[in-house]
């Protein structure tokens, strides 16, 4: 087997939450025995968007905010791949917000990991859409990605983890990857991943997080109840985490692709292969 790229050492500041996300992701992939050759990580642009350099799988570094559209097409091109999109909150909720909405609507079987730190780490600490009120003078009410995800009837997997809780995070990533691999649709996982340099929220978040899956009253199969529960938790000043919603719906690739067809990426596209059907295309215009 040829020698391939040397896995990079993460470029993050010591203590950055993204280290925890990387560790959990590696652990989840290993425990699920996902073949690295069949895995592609699509990174965003930001500190977080470097994560694909640090694991020996296929990596694609997208444009800022465009990781979801790219990853969606990778999945359509070859549904046999495990497709993981991973980026920041600025990437996904600001510049890429429209694509987030449409990924939720389409439900492609990809994992979407957002390393949410409430700031633009790479551009040195401006407030992101999820910045807490008061951060760098922000007066805007923070964007709540899990509520948005829940509010689309087509969403099938909505979760939130915390980089400071490895056990829970590994479990959530594994569940997300399984959702993806089984073709069940869009596995959205927002991960609280503090930026220790510009917005160090570790202590605050450690106090505020609450694992809703530990609450026997929480039903993560009921969209409206889950929504209400999460909203109330947020309003009370806590941060809901866990697998917040799991539902069922046709995946994008199932809706779009011809059932049973060979993945596009693997098809023989030589003209001889399809000559008769190509002739038929021409006949339409004769």
């Amino acid at each position, binding site marked *: *087997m*040829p*020698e*391939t*790229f*040397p896995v*990079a050492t993460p470029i993050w500041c010591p203590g950055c939450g993204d280290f925890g996300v990387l560790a959990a992701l590696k652990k989840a992939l290993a425990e699920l025995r996902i073949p*690295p*050759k*069949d*895995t*592609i990580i*699509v990174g965003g642009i930001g500190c977080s968007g*470097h994560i*694909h*350099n640090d694991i020996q*799988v*296929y*990596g*694609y*570094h*997208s*444009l800022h905010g*465009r990781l979801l*559209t*790219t*990853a*969606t*097409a*990778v999945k*359509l*091109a*070859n549904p*046999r*791949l495990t497709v993981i999109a991973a980026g920041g909150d600025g990437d996904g909720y600001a510049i890429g917000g*429209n*694509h987030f*909405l*449409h990924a939720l609507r389409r439900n492609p079987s990809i994992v979407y990991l957002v390393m949410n730190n409430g700031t633009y780490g790479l551009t040195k600490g401006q407030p992101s859409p999820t910045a807490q009120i008061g951060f760098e003078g922000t007066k805007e009410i923070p964007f709540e990605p899990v509520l948005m995800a829940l509010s689309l009837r087509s969403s099938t997997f909505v979760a939130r983890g915390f980089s400071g809780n490895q056990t829970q995070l590994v479990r959530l990533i594994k569940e997300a990857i399984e959702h993806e691999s089984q073709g069940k649709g869009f596995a959205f996982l927002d991960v609280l991943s503090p930026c220790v340099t510009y917005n160090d929220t570790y202590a605050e978040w450690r106090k505020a997080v609450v694992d809703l899956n530990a609450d026997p009253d929480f039903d993560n199969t009921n969209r409206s109840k889950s929504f209400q529960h999460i909203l109330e938790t947020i309003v009370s000043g806590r941060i809901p985490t866990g697998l917040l919603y799991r539902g069922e719906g046709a995946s994008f690739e199932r809706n*779009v*692709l*011809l059932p049973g*067809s*060979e993945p*596009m*990426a*693997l*098809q023989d*596209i*030589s*003209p001889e292969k*399809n*000559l008769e*059907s*190509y*002739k038929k*295309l*021409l006949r339409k*215009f*004769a």
Partner: protein
Amino acid sequence: MTTTLERETRPIQPKRVNEIRVMVGGQGGDGTLTVISLLARCLKLIGLHTYDARNVLSRIRGGHADGVLRGSVNRVLCSGDALDALVAFDEEAVEVGSPLLEADGVVIFDSSRGPLKKQLPPRVQVYQSKLSDLAGTQLKKTLLKNTISFAILSRALGLKQELVERVVKERYQRKGGEVLEGNMAALQIGFRLADEIGVAAHYSMPEGAENDSLQVVGDEAIGIGFIVGGGRFYAGYPITPASEVLDYLSVNLPKFGGAAVQAEDEISAINMAIGAAVAGVRSMTATSGPGQDLMTEGLGQAAEAEIPVVIVDVQRSGPSTGMPTKHEQSDLNHVVFAGHGDFPRLVIAPADVTDCFYLTVDALNLAEKYQMPVFILIDQALAQNSQSVPPFDLSKVRVERGKLLSQTELDSLPVYKRYEFSSDGVSRRTIPGMSGGFSQITGNEHNEWGMVSVNTENREKMMRKRMLKAELAKTEMPRGRFYGSPDAKIGFVSFGSNVGPILEAMDILATKNVPTKFLLVRSLHPLHEDELVQFLDSVDTAFVVECNLSGQLAGLIRREVGFANKIFGINRFDGHSFRPSEIAQRVLEELGPKTGGNSRNA
């Protein structure tokens, strides 16, 4: 029957013609264009070639809309200069069409809203009748006025009734039931009406056997070329005049295990095309100016990360929303220059529907062999007007995937680096799923492994590597086409659908003893400087014909090869394509009383 008829009785002898030009005009959404497509079918069945052009507004209903059909024993690439017959459903259509009418032309007018007011030249034959009213009262469907008018028109054109009936029947067979019956009944009403009002056969066309031509618009030809060239993934956001590509591929790609995705915007569309390409699929997106603007960042990404994608830009009138349905050729600068940073790209400019097919296949091959974005630049007229073309020759289609490795090839390598330096700048490519092919693909500057790098030496080498590919790709880019007399001292240079009007302008000029020649440029970036230099060297005056105000092609030529003092612009930017006579006229004016006289820089 409430028909009123004003008939001028004059014996009419059918005129033998090799060509017939008909306009059908009315309000948008009232079905005027179906008359054009029915007639196009009839003409094909008697062996004629057709060209049809549509002039519509950017709304579904209302506003003047017309279609022009030209049928000819020769292949034609534009609507020409004049009209033989005009079917007008309102006064406005007469205003629009009548100035083009031949002195002995025919007008069929729907007088439901009152008799024709416009005074027409004495030899023009007008047949008027309350077509809409008739369709409404007799068939309970005013839209069937179209089919009634078609029957009358077919009489005036001297077409056989069986042929006309066959075509209408075939056309509505699939819909069956009421639709079919309604249209067949409308035809009979039309024929009876024609008898009553004494519609004569004004023309007689040579009737041969059905020809084997395809009647295709440019957008569809690109769609066919894409599938046949192995394209399987398409993403696009609806926009006139590129939507037909999306429409065609949405219907047809799934049959081949592919997919056409309607993206949420053009930013998404190009990034989807990129994603599918990264996974190993031949992919494409198509748009028009506003969407092209949004795709610009993705263009640079495809170039920097060395991802093969094909981008179709169907030009319309800009800037901004401009005149969305109208013709223009003003994105040339954009596709050649857009994007921050220095990067390679290829820009191919098909000039006719045949080109649209073959050059799309070429674009796919070039994109994959040189691992870079390739533009196909066409214009509204080429995209949406239908041409009769010889059947596309599938045996000429090759799929060349360049340095895309097979698993066996990959297995034999000691080291695999996605961006390995090589003599031609092209590196071997793997796709996810291959074992031993891990790669990092990125739009950040990177080293050979694809790891982000700001090393100065590496940067220079990577920049040169990417640019080298465009230079080598140039040797495979489509060459220009030459027309006319080699010794002519008056030349035309142009691109895209202008080929039609220019060729006919050359014929007009030849009759006035002004011999001309013409270089049709089909690669806009990189330009084939050699063919331009040779051509421009050999003429005294070169008219650069283009549908934009600032002379973008002329500017490009001046920038790349010079010859500023020989270049004159002939420009049109009112939303319509050129007419042959207008180009000939402009040349004659420019040359002054003596050929080769008066020189003025554009």
